[in-house]
């Protein structure tokens, strides 16, 4: 096989950052906050690179939709082993309002233009947790989808994908072209090594706008409010088991 793969990489607030709600309650504070590649997308890139190492994949195209800084994320993908990158630039202000249907439209269009055989996306981004883009891409392209993948192997001219489902695993066979979304246990992404980071600076990043691709990114959703979860109430100390049992009874827990 010699597949052309598209991987989606989103720039998100780093997982280790403790996010704060923005004063206008429309989103979280992103200024001056460390960003990095969405962890599920890192897994997608890693999987594509591994498939390339196994000679199942011939070329990896990384795509990111977002503000100018998304290029950093693309550089990371290139340093991890992607061959080329496409940045669909959306100004920071608009990027906030970009929703899965827009991104799916963009990815579907690029998949066609680039003659892609396999799209690998993270199952969700850790900032908005939509978990929709992969499914929508499959819908728009009318391709088979294998979501929440924890293993991908080549089989019978297509791919055999193990999916993580509630309480177990499901194994499905998909024909190509197809869309796969990654789950946490698919692989352990590698670090981009320094020599590869340097080399990545020389790899091409193609810049496009949603309009170039004929995708309308007018917001279809309105964020009404973003709030912190309720603060956990302080616990209380009990002197002995009897008191504990009594308190639990009072609270109606036993």
């Amino acid at each position, binding site marked *: 096989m010699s597949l052309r793969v598209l991987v989606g990489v989103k720039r998100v607030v780093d*997982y*280790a950052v403790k996010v704060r709600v923005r004063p206008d309650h429309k989103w979280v504070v992103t200024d001056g906050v*460390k960003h990095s590649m969405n962890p599920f997308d890192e897994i997608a890139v890693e999987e594509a690179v591994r498939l390339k190492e196994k000679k199942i994949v011939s070329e990896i195209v990384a795509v990111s939709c977002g503000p100018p800084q998304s290029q*950093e994320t693309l550089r990371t993908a290139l340093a991890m082993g992607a061959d080329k990158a496409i940045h669909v630039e959306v100004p920071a202000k608009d990027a906030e309002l970009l929703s899965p249907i827009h991104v799916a439209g963009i990815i579907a269009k690029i998949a066609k233009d680039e003659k892609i055989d396999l799209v690998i996306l993270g199952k969700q*981004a*850790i900032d908005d*947790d939509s978990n929709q883009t992969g499914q929508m891409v499959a819908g728009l392209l009318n391709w088979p989808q294998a979501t929440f993948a924890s293993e991908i192997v080549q089989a019978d001219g297509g791919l055999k994908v193990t999916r993580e489902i509630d309480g177990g695993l499901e194994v499905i066979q998909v024909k190509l072209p197809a869309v796969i979304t990654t789950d946490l246990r698919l692989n352990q992404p590698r670090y981009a*090594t*320094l020599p590869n980071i340097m080399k990545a600076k020389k790899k091409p990043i193609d810049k496009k706008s949603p309009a170039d691709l004929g995708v309308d990114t007018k917001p279809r959703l309105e964020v009404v409010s973003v709030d*912190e979860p309720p603060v956990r109430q302080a616990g209380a100390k009990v002197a002995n088991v009897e008191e504990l049992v009594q308190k639990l009874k009072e609270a109606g827990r036993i």
Partner: protein
Amino acid sequence: MQSVACRGLIRRFLPQKEPVSSWTTSTARLFLAGARTASTAAQPSKQVDVEEKTDVIFTNQHFEIRNLARKLIDSEINPHVDKWEAEGQFPGHAVFKKFGEAGLLGLNRDEAYGGMGLDFSYNIAFAEELGYIDAGGVVSAFGVQTDMATPAFAKYGSHELKKQYLEPAIRGEMVACVGVSEVEAGSDVANTKTHAVRKGGDFIINGHKMWITNGAQADWICLVCNTEADKPKHLSKSHILVPMKSPGVTVAKKISKMGNRSSDTAQIFFEDVKVPQTNLIGEAGMGFIYQMEQFQEERLWCAASALIGMDRIIKSTAEYCAERKAFGSAVLNNQIIYFTLAELQTEVEALRALTYRAVANYTQGDDVTLLASMCKLKAGRLARIVADKCLQFWGGMGYSEEVLISRYFRDTRCLSIAGGTDEIMLHIIAKYMGISPEKAKKK
């Protein structure tokens, strides 16, 4: 699917050690492995956003490298340091291999030997980031590998010798150590007695070295050794590369130390050790001079590697004192405490500025022996003051093994001793100022 739908946000909003669902815990474990370890004292402060960041000597690319180093520190080192401290040794080969593969062990080394071909300021960027390691012992092991055992070798060693020993050290496949100090002579480097005589095409080496960092696991030692018996002692020494597996090399003991416990510090004996004369680094008789030259990088490295440790200790002390209540108020609210912490942080920034200046001058080709000695002196002294003053503010907790500050207190004490003592730094500084009986030789 409700709990699944917003887990990313849930995870972020949660106080650190609060499991919500098994999913979140397992994700947290996988994702946060290392980034959030059990370290009770100094929490890693936030990583810089490489997209914009620069700082005097550091470009965006320096910060990119620092972030890469940080990822490896958080995943490959910090989760294990408690174990290594208890065992009295960290696995040098396994750890260096990971950093070597990432390209971090030869930042300023020639690409012909697997280096990155960058300048020394990149080594300093890496050194500074190493301050995020939760144990000083591991930090010092890196320093020996990248900036203490190798500078003279990289500069003066022959191509063949570098292919054989420098390249694997840069790849992280060989662990290096540097042998200067002896039982009878530490500060007084010129008085070291280990010697080599020429026989056929070989050197026959006899003597011993003391306090050798990485000594118990090293593959080779850059040995300072007398080869020119007829010359005065400053001109009698050479650097010789000695494979540690050579017959006659005995690692006598791993020294038990008050701090830097995860670093193996060894006493090593050399008894009729035979190495080819081609293992000579540079010119015979130049060993003392090479060593003094190499000390510049070593000392700048020492200062840089100490900065973030101090930042972290000050920060974690402030955090602890903000939570700790006494007499009805947070102890941080006592002016003596917040003033002290403010002053310490000011001093750290002053040291950082001095270090960056010395590095800037060095990378443009100046001899910075004076500034590097000042950096080393100030780093050693300041780290001791920071450790001592901060530990005090932790009260009894600071004296326990539960928190990082006690380890920090033990580890940093070494900084005023190893790599040249405070007193020796003062000697050099006074000499350069022209105020000591022995005047600096005009360059």
